[in-house]
């Protein structure tokens, strides 16, 4: 029994979604750099999210990838903040990315939209961090310390992740992977 093209596509998309979920947890745990700069890990997992959303190109796919990645991170790095907040730190950025892609022209292989989307997605993690701190009863004075630098760094690392993702997507388009073959034909991958 042969599968329809739509069914094959769905399997391919699900494979990419699962792979990106794993890439997120690898980026967050295994490849974590020993530098004490808030948000630096975002370069890798935001790049993974941008690449995944750029390849799958289905509404909600970034949220799904982030959910898988978040669940894996929560299992591999259990923290006292609980699974809900750990997962939310990935799902919310994923949802922000999903929400922004159509507004930004739907092409994450273009540098400017990818940089902006990556920065906004990663910045939304700061909001989750703040909400977590407030709910945990952390004094606002403690939460506020270094908040400006933390927010700016999350934006910067998210933008860097978006840039990295866009460059990888451009390479994938040039390599004519099946999911992006139609974009290669447009000749606008640069």
């Amino acid at each position, binding site marked *: 029994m042969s599968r329809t093209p739509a069914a094959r596509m769905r399997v391919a998309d699900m494979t990419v979604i699962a792979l990106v979920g794993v890439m997120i947890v690898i980026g967050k745990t295994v490849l974590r750099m020993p530098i004490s700069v808030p948000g630096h890990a975002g370069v890798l997992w935001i790049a993974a999210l941008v690449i995944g959303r750029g390849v799958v190109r289905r509404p909600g796919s970034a949220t799904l990838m982030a959910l898988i990645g978040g669940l894996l991170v929560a299992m591999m790095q259990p923290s006292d903040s609980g699974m809900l907040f750990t997962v939310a730190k990935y799902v919310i950025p994923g949802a922000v990315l999903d929400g922004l892609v159509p507004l930004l022209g739907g092409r994450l292989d273009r540098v400017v939209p990818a940089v902006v989307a990556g*920065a906004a997605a990663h910045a939304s993690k700061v909001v989750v961090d703040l909400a977590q701190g407030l709910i945990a009863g952390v004094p*606002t004075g403690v939460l506020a310390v270094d908040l400006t630098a933390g927010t700016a760094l999350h934006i910067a690392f998210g933008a860097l992740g978006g840039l990295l993702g866009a460059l990888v997507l451009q390479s994938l388009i040039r390599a004519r992977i099946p999911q992006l073959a139609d974009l290669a034909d447009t000749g606008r991958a640069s």
Partner: protein
Amino acid sequence: MDSRSAEAALDDGRVAPDVRTRIAIAVVALVLATGVAAAWWFESHASAPGAPATSNGYAVKVTRDGELLASYGLAELQAMGTKTVVVQGGTETGPALLAVLDRAGVDTFTSVTIIGTGTRDTGRLVLAAGDIGPDTVLDIAKRGTVKVAGPNVTRDQRVRDITEIQVR
């Protein structure tokens, strides 16, 4: 038109990349800039410059089996006497963890679990009694909170913004 067909339409040239995309980029950039400005406002209003770090209500609790043994503000931690140690190429200054436990009346223990806010790390570290030496300190950070540092605590393991030390 769903996003996939919209993207296909863009690719086909049927729909020119319109001004809406540029406006969206500008709006998102503006929102991000507003976010940074809001963070700066919150930071400058929540902690007045030069104010003592103790004014932020921060405290470290020492507990055993859920029972509160002691709670120390930053000034009390500093008053215990600070120790400066060099670990992993950095200088960390604060009271020794053993001194804090001793002050809380803890004489014997098998392990301690360091709990933090978890906003900058995993927020949890379990240290066996053998892992805690005289050079294991609660470093007093510029942000007015403490983090754990020591020869047996790698950078990745460090818990910042400590709120509780659970003794077992």
